[in-house]
């Protein structure tokens, strides 16, 4: 059985977020870090520091893992700006006349 982290939204904690269990994603130690600090404040602090994966023992879910995406996907609110993504998409206008010729791609096999 998995438990969701109420700070970062990581959904595969193997122990409940209590009794000094530590989230491998954000590193929150429940019962210690959240004793006098709200989960939202801990979340903001983690995100503001780059939302880096905490655990060395538990690997990231995948190479495209993104802490902001994880928090957003879990529907958790936060108050810091999201960083730029790890990809860029650009639109390129190609000069030249528009000659309506039939074309068909040759697919890679």
């Amino acid at each position: 059985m998995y438990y969701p982290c109420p700070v970062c939204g990581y959904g595969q904690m193997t122990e409940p977020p209590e009794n000094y269990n530590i989230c491998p994603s954000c590193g929150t130690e429940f019962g210690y870090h959240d004793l006098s600090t709200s989960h939202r404040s801990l979340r903001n602090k983690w995100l503001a520091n780059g939302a880096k994966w905490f655990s060395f023992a538990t690997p990231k879910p995948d190479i495209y893992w993104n802490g902001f995406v994880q928090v957003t996907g879990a529907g958790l609110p936060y108050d810091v700006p999201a960083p730029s993504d790890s990809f860029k998409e650009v639109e390129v206008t190609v000069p030249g006349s528009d000659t309506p010729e039939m074309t068909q791609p040759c697919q890679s096999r």
Partner: protein
Amino acid sequence: MPKPLIFAPCERVIIGMGDQAASLIVILHGLQMHADAIPPELTPLYRFSVFTQWHRSPEEEGKTFEQRVAMVYENESPILENITAFKMTESTTYRVITNFQKFPALTKYGEYILTLSIRAQGESAWPIPVATYPLAITLVPKATTQVQ
């Protein structure tokens, strides 16, 4: 310099809403022109994308680079060129999706080459391409097309 992991032209690139994983739709290796002969200047109305994925070393985090995608025919001047600057973030990989609204004007059929170059932002010269991708432009006579 970052290392190229993927350099591929395709019809479309889809980025997942949640995991931001990239999917390439119809990877190209050429284009068939359904015509009897290439007119003096032909611009195929074929939208395509070029997907590049870079892998950085630890010391390249936070640095800005420029990638150049060009299309050449043999040793002639590029008929298509795009330069995109990007900053390597915390992620060890960075993906650039370049969407071309159509093919550049073609005057010959045969093998065109897509080239990929990279330099640090601020450098003036482009080093030799780090990757090339051949694209075969072939002519399919209209008569043959009708028989099919």
